[in-house]
């Protein structure tokens, strides 16, 4: 079933006068693991910030289901974004709170659950990401990989429909990154969430991506979309092939080694 959860129409993004990307059109379907890829500095993270409502587009529209994010008033907008969970590149954990308090924050602030129930949910979410027993640690006491997993536990606190990841495996060793990928896959399957990932980690892109778009920094727009494997097999754009093969193969000899 291909039910659109987010549709982007004619989106242009800019910082002041500087255009980042223009005329973006794509759809994220329910259950997708949607990869936003592209070279460094092409506007991947900026696109993510637009999708989660942190930045306003220069032009164009973003729809959640059928409702426009930009046309919505503050209340309606909160409702639309309420079912989002976001994991920032650095985890984004509040450094003055313990892990348990961090994970509990969205729960205490947007629900009326009893303290005991919140404690249970926090313990459960931390256990899901393999951090059971770390409730009373502060973020600074944990390794980078653990901080990311704790950020993931917090992003999942309200059982989101859509999980956003900004470079989840940046700064992690290959094994830890692989574990995080597996975790994302397993959570997607068991929570039936939609996942949107910004990454340029090829291993992750091929391992978990079910759909993808490729942003190009030179032409400042989206130059390809589709599943990463299909893109590698059928794309004729040398930029995409170079990206997906770490620049090892030119477009001409693709298919031989792909």
């Amino acid at each position, binding site marked *: 079933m291909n039910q659109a959860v987010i549709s982007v129409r004619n989106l242009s993004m800019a910082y002041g006068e500087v255009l980042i990307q223009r005329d973006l059109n794509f759809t994220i379907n329910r259950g997708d693991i949607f990869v936003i890829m592209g070279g460094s500095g092409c506007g991947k993270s900026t696109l993510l910030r637009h999708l989660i409502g942190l930045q306003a587009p220069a032009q164009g529209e973003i729809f959640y289901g059928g409702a426009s994010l930009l046309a919505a008033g503050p209340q309606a907008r909160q409702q639309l*974004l309420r079912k989002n969970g976001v994991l920032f590149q650095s*985890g984004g*954990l509040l*450094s003055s709170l313990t892990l348990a308090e961090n994970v509990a924050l969205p729960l205490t602030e*947007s629900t009326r659950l009893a303290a005991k129930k919140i404690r249970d949910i926090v313990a459960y979410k931390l256990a899901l990401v393999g951090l059971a027993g770390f409730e009373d640690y502060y973020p600074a006491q944990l390794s980078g990989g653990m901080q990311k997993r704790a950020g993931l536990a917090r992003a999942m606190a309200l059982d989101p429909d859509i999980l956003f990841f900004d470079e989840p495996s940046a700064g992690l060793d290959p094994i830890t990154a692989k574990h995080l990928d597996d975790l994302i896959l397993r959570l997607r399957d068991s929570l039936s969430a939609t996942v949107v990932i910004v990454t340029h980690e090829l291993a992750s892109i091929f391992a978990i991506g079910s759909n993808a778009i490729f942003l190009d920094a030179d032409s400042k727009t989206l130059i390809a979309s589709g599943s990463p494997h299909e893109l590698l097999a059928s794309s004729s754009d040398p930029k995409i092939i170079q990206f997906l093969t770490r620049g090892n193969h030119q477009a001409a000899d693709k298919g031989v080694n792909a």
Partner: protein
Amino acid sequence: MGTSSQTADIVLHQHQHIYEIALTGDWLIDAESKDTGSIVSAIGQLPAGSRLLFTTAELGRWDSVLVTEIITILEVAHQTGVLVDRSSLPEAIQGLLKLVYTAPEGAEIKSPIQAASWIDSIRQTLASVSNDLSALLEFVGLLVMTVYDLLRGNSHFRRVDLWLQIQECGPAALPIVTLISLLVGLILAFVGAVQLSLFGAEIYIANLVSLGMTREMGGLMTAIIMSGRTGAAYAAQLGTMRVNDEIDALKTMNLEPLAFLVIPRMTALILIMPLLCLYADLMGIIGGAMVSITLFDISVTEYVDRTINAVQMKDFVIGFIKCAVFGILIALAGCLRGMQCGRSASAVGDAATSAVVTSIVFIVVADSVMTLICNRLGV
């Protein structure tokens, strides 16, 4: 080649139409450097089209020192139209030069900082002042709306954060406030005593110290201490939270950063400042008493009596109000600079510095205005 280092040398020879640069010895960063200026200018004066090559048979060890010299020579040669044969250089150097002269892919190189003329820099300064002012107004406006939302129950902060902030800017600041106010009281007493003793009026030290502390110095010193201690801390805390994506994370969790982070900090400082000011007044008066009693033979009862006579309720109230205003200004400057902070470590430092500078400017201006008003009103 041995491990003992040989002096670097560079010589330019001419064989008919071919010029030859002989490089000998060790060219190392930690060795004495060889001045190549004369060679470079000699190359600059060669006729265009002449050929240049290197002989490196006696070249010892080398590092970046030699490579940069060769780059300089290549560039001068390029400008004067001298043809250089690079193949006579060691292969490793050729490889490095190849890397240096490969243009980065697809990048048009722009100089990030354009040198500005002084008129431009004045214009930029003026523009940044007016930007600062409008940012301040916008921030105040947002705060008012946030307070309105808080009162209507549309957004909220954690009560425990408020208590933590009060603890942080109140009791934790007592030692430094004690020390500074005692000393300021002492200083006031000494300065006054020198003049008053000319008239044999040392007893009025009590008046001078108590009025000076309550109306002016107590509040001012507290404000300056707190702008350095708490204002800077607010800016650094909020700035670091921005760098770490914590503020964005709050937004995605439907928590308004202004309500959640800024309001508890501002409330704490605004509540605590007047109390700290009263405490500072008291400490200053005690400091003055210490000088008067030990050095100028004034008894404790006399000092207390004079103080009670000199200071009226209105003096306390004026100091109190001033300090409350200072509290608002310090909290405003600290939080504003923190929320404006860029996304780098140096930006956090800048935010803290600029929070202190901004709040001290605010404090002094506000103090002058309020003193003037009190003077006009005759209180």
